[in-house]
C-alpha cells in the first residue's frame, strides 16, 4: 500500500511538472545569438555553395559588390562597390552592355589582405573556371556569355566538350574568351555583356554567393585557382573535398568563422575590423537539430533565439510566452504538379497496363490538353490554401510568383469545378477515355505531407467523377523520385522551385522552356510543343528586352500560356514565417536568403 501510494505521488508530480515550461523575463546571453536550424551546411566556399543553409553563412562572412536595400528586393545599395551602376550615373553604358563598378578602398579581409579591383576580377574568374556541375554559375554565364556554362564556351572556342580535357594552349584560348567579359580599369571593374540583360545586377547582388569577393593572394596560397590562364582543366569542377575554400573562409563581412563542426554546429565571431560599424552581436551560433519538439523547448527556455519550424505546427506556437511568430512573409516559390507528356511506359508500374484500356494510361496521357485541363479542374485549391496552408499563401497563377513582373492577381486561374472536369474528361481521347476509364499512380516523395495531401485531393475528386477512374497515390523515396524524373518514367507528381535571384526569368526557364530543369522532365512532346508554339523564344525574349513594361507583357503572356494550355498543374505559392524570441530586434525579412538571416543589424533587447 505504501509503495503504491508513492508511485501515485510520483506519477501525479510528473504530470503536473510536464504541464508548465519555465519562462524568462530578462534577455539570455545578450551578445550571443543562437539559431536552431534543420539540415546541414553543404560548403563554406561561396562559389560552390548553392543551398539555403550554406548561403546564410556565406552572406554573413563574405560580401558582394552591391546589396539589396534593407527589406526591399527591387532596389540596390552599394556594398564593396561605392556606387550602384545605373544608366543615370553613367556606370551602365553602351545600351546596357557595359557595367562599371568603382571599388571601395580601405576594406580589409579577415585574414588581413586589402581589397583591390584585382581581387574582384580574380573572384569572378575563379568562379567561372570553377563552374561545378550542379553549381550556381549558370546564372552568370547567361548574362556574361549567353551560354549555359564553361563547357559551352570550351566547345565553342576550341571544340572541347569537357573542360577537364583542355590542354594548356587550349586553356589559354578559352581564358582569353572569359577575360573579355571582365576587366580592371584603375579602381574600377568593368563587365562587358554580349547583349543587354536585365537580370545581371540581380545575379551579382549580395545574397547570391557567386558574386562573393575573395582575396586573390590568400586564395592562391590556400590552393585555389592559381590565376594562370593555362590551368583551367585542373581547377574546373572541383570535388568538394579537394576544394581549399570548403572549410576555411576569408571574407570582408561583419562576421568571421570561429568553428564549423560539420553536421552539428557553426559559430561565427564578430569582425571587429569591419569597414562599417562592427555588428552588435559578438557571436552567432547556428545549431542543427532535426527534432521539432527539441527545437521548440529550446526556444521556450530561451536557449535559442530563432528556431526553424515547419508551417504545419504553427498552432503550437501562436500564443507562447516570450515568443514571437511572424507569418505571411513573401516567399518566392512556386509549388506545382509536374505532368509528364511522354511517359516512358516500359517496365513502369505507375502506368499499369500502359495503354488506354481502362486498366492503365497510355504514354501520351498528359499530352491530351483535355486530360490536363480536367486534372486542373479537379484540384481543391481553396481547401489547399485554407486547410493545408492554414490560410497563408495563395494559389499559384502560373510559374511566376508574386511580386515578380508578370504576376497579376486578376489573371485567370483554375478553380475546382468537377462539372468542367467531367466535360474535359469526356472530350479527352475523343471520348474513349471516358468510356474505358483509366488507372494511374501519381507520386510524392515520402516525408512531404503537403505533396501527399495534394495527391490525395486529386485522387478523392477524380475518382468521384467516374467510377472507372482509378488513381493510386504512392510515396517513394527521393532516390526513386529523382530516378523516375530523369528516366522519363514520372507520371504526375508535385514539386517546387524557389528563387535563386530576384527575376521572373529564374522561373520561366525551369518551368516552361523546353531545356529547363522541369522542361527536361516533361517529355519529348512537351519539348516539341514548347519549341513549335514559341514558348522557348518567348522565354528568351523576356531577357532580351530591357524595358520594364515590355518585359511585363511578355511575362504576362507566359503566365497566360501556362493557364490556357494547362501545361502543368500550378498549385500554390506559400508564405514564409519566422519563429523567434521577442527580444530579437533589428530583424528584417529577406526573401532571397529566405530562412537565412543577415545578422549585421540584429541585437537582443527586451522592450
Amino acid at each position, binding site marked *: 500500500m505504501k509503495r503504491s501510494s508513492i508511485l501515485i505521488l510520483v506519477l501525479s508530480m510528473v504530470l503536473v511538472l510536464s504541464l508548465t515550461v519555465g519562462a524568462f523575463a530578462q534577455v539570455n546571453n545578450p551578445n550571443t545569438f543562437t539559431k536552431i536550424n534543420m539540415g*546541414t551546411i553543404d560548403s563554406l566556399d561561396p562559389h560552390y555553395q548553392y543551398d539555403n543553409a550554406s548561403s546564410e553563412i556565406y552572406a554573413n562572412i563574405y560580401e558582394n559588390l552591391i546589396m539589396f536595400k534593407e527589406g526591399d528586393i527591387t532596389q540596390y545599395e552599394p556594398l564593396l562597390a561605392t556606387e550602384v551602376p545605373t544608366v543615370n550615373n553613367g556606370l551602365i553604358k553602351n545600351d546596357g552592355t557595359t557595367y562599371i563598378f568603382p571599388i571601395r578602398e580601405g576594406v580589409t579581409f579577415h585574414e588581413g589582405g586589402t581589397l583591390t579591383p584585382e581581387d574582384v576580377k580574380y573572384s569572378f574568374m575563379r568562379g567561372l573556371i570553377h563552374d561545378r556541375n*550542379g553549381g550556381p554559375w549558370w546564372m552568370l554565364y547567361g548574362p556574361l556569355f549567353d551560354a549555359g556554362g564553361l563547357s559551352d564556351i570550351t566547345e565553342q572556342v576550341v571544340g572541347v566538350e569537357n573542360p577537364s580535357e583542355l590542354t594548356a594552349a587550349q586553356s589559354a584560348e578559352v581564358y582569353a574568351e572569359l577575360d573579355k567579359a571582365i576587366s580592371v580599369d584603375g579602381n574600377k571593374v568593368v563587365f562587358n555583356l554580349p547583349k543587354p540583360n536585365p537580370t545581371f545586377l540581380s545575379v551579382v547582388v549580395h545574397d547570391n554567393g557567386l558574386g562573393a569577393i575573395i582575396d586573390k593572394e590568400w586564395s592562391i596560397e590556400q590552393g585555389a585557382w592559381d590565376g594562370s590562364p593555362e590551368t583551367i582543366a585542373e581547377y574546373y569542377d572541383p570535388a568538394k573535398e579537394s576544394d581549399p575554400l570548403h572549410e576555411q573562409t576569408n571574407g570582408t563581412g561583419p562576421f568571421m568563422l570561429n568553428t564549423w563542426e560539420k553536421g552539428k554546429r557553426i559559430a561565427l565571431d564578430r569582425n571587429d575590423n569591419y569597414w562599417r560599424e562592427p555588428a552588435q552581436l559578438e557571436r552567432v551560433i547556428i545549431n542543427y537539430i532535426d527534432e521539432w519538439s527539441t527545437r521548440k523547448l529550446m526556444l521556450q527556455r530561451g536557449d535559442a533565439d530563432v528556431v526553424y519550424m515547419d508551417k504545419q505546427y504553427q498552432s503550437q506556437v501562436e500564443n507562447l510566452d516570450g515568443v514571437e511568430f511572424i507569418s505571411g512573409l513573401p516567399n518566392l516559390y512556386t509549388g506545382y504538379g509536374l505532368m509528364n507528356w511522354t511517359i516512358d511506359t516500359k517496365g513502369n508500374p505507375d502506368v499499369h497496363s500502359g495503354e488506354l484500356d481502362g486498366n492503365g494510361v497510355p504514354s501520351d496521357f498528359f499530352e491530351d490538353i483535355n486530360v490536363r485541363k480536367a486534372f486542373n479542374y479537379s484540384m481543391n485549391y481553396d481547401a489547399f490554401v485554407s486547410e493545408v496552408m492554414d490560410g497563408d499563401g495563395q494559389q499559384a497563377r502560373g510559374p511566376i510568383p508574386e511580386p515578380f513582373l508578370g504576376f497579376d492577381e486578376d489573371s485567370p486561374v483554375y478553380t475546382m469545378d468537377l462539372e468542367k472536369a467531367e466535360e474535359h474528361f469526356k472530350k479527352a481521347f475523343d471520348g474513349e477515355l471516358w468510356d474505358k476509364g483509366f488507372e494511374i499512380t501519381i507520386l510524392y516523395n515520402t516525408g512531404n505531407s503537403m505533396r501527399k495531401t495534394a495527391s490525395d485531393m486529386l485522387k478523392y475528386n477524380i475518382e468521384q467523377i467516374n467510377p472507372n477512374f482509378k488513381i493510386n497515390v504512392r510515396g517513394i523515396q527521393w532516390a526513386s523520385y*529523382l530516378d523516375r524524373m*530523369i528516366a522519363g518514367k514520372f507520371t504526375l507528381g508535385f514539386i517546387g522551385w524557389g528563387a535563386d535571384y530576384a527575376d521572373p526569368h529564374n522561373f520561366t526557364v525551369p518551368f516552361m522552356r523546353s531545356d529547363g530543369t522541369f522542361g527536361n522532365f516533361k517529355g519529348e512532346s512537351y519539348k516539341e510543343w514548347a519549341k513549335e508554339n514559341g514558348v522557348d523564344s518567348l522565354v528568351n525574349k523576356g531577357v532580351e528586352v530591357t524595358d520594364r513594361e515590355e518585359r511585363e507583357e511578355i511575362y504576362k503572356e507566359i503566365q497566360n500560356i501556362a493557364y490556357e494550355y494547362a501545361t502543368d498543374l500550378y498549385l500554390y505559392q506559400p508564405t514564409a514565417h519566422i519563429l523567434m524570441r521577442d527580444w530579437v530586434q533589428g530583424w528584417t525579412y529577406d526573401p532571397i536568403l529566405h530562412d537565412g538571416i543577415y545578422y549585421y543589424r540584429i541585437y537582443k533587447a527586451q522592450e
Partner: protein
Amino acid sequence: MISYIVRRLLILPIILIGVTLLVFSMIMMLGPYERLSTYIKDPAELKNVDVDVLVTKLGLNDPWYEQYGRWISGVARGDMGWSESAGSTVTQAFLSRFPATAELGLLALLPVVVGGVILGVFASVHHNDFWDHVSRVLAIIGWSVPTFVFGLIMLMIFYGTLGWFPPSRLDSWALDIVNSAGFINYTNFFIIDGLLNANFAIVGNAIRHLVAPVITISILWWAFIMRITRSSMLEILRRDYIRTARAKGVKENVVVYKHAVRNALIPVVTVAGRMVLGLLGGLVITETIFNIKGLGQFMAQAAQQLDYPAVLGGTLYFGFLLILINLCVDVSYAIIDPRIRLE
C-alpha cells in the same frame, strides 16, 4: 584460450569483407540515377546538373566490382572515402561521432544492467506473486512505449519544466572551452577529457547532459535484461546445490544474492554484450531527440541517403566491434564459470 582468441581474430577479415560485400551488393541493386540521390538531395540541386556527366565523374555506371574494388583498395590504403551525408571524410565523420555515442551507450550500460538485474532478481524472488506481475508489466510497458514518446516526455520534464538536464552534449560555454586552444582533446569523450584537463566544470556539464537520455535508454532496456535475469534465476533457484544450501539452513538472502545471482549472470553477460552493439548502433531516436550527434543518427541518415562510403565504413566498424564484443563475452564466460572451456 589464446589460440581460441587468435583463431577468432583470423576470421575477422573474412567476415568484414563478407559484410561489406553484402551491403555493397544491396546498394548496387539500384540504378546509377538512383544512387545519384546521394549527391542531389533536393530538386533545387537539379538546376544545372548534367546528370550523365555526374554519373560518369562519380563512376556510378562502372561494373560493381570496379566500384567495390575502388572502395576496398582505398580502405587498404587507409582512405575510407568521402561521406556526402556528413560533408567530411568517413574517418572524420566516425571519429567525431563515435565518442558521443560511446559515452552515452557505455554510461547507460551500467544502469541498464544493474537495474535490469535487480528487477529480474526481485521478480524471481517473488515468483508468481503480485510483485512479480507488477514489475513484469511495468517493464513491458517501458519496452513497448516508443522511445520517442518517452524521450520527449523526459525532455519536457527535465529540460522544459525543471531546466535540469538540457539536450545536446554540452552547454555553449562549455563547448567554447572544449574548442579553445587551452583544452586538449585527448579522446573527445568529454567526461574523460575533462578529467584529464582537470576541468571539472566540463565533466559536470557533460554528465548533466547525459542524465535524461540515459534514463530514457534504461527504462527501455530494463525489460530486456530483467526477463533474462528472471528466467535464469528461476532455473538456478531450483538447482540441487541451492536446495542443498537451503536445506543446510543458509539464510535465504545469502542463497539468493550470493549463490544464485552469480550463476544467473552468465546469460545476462551474453545478452549485455550483444546489447552494447545495439546501444552503439541503435540509438537513432534517443540521439535525435536529445540532439546528440552520434553514430546511430548518422548511420540512419547515411543509409537513407544511400551514402555508400559511410554505410560501408559503418558496417566495417560495427562488424569489427561485434567480433570484439563476442570475443569479450566468450572470454568472460570462462572467467565467470571456470568449468566452461573455449573450444
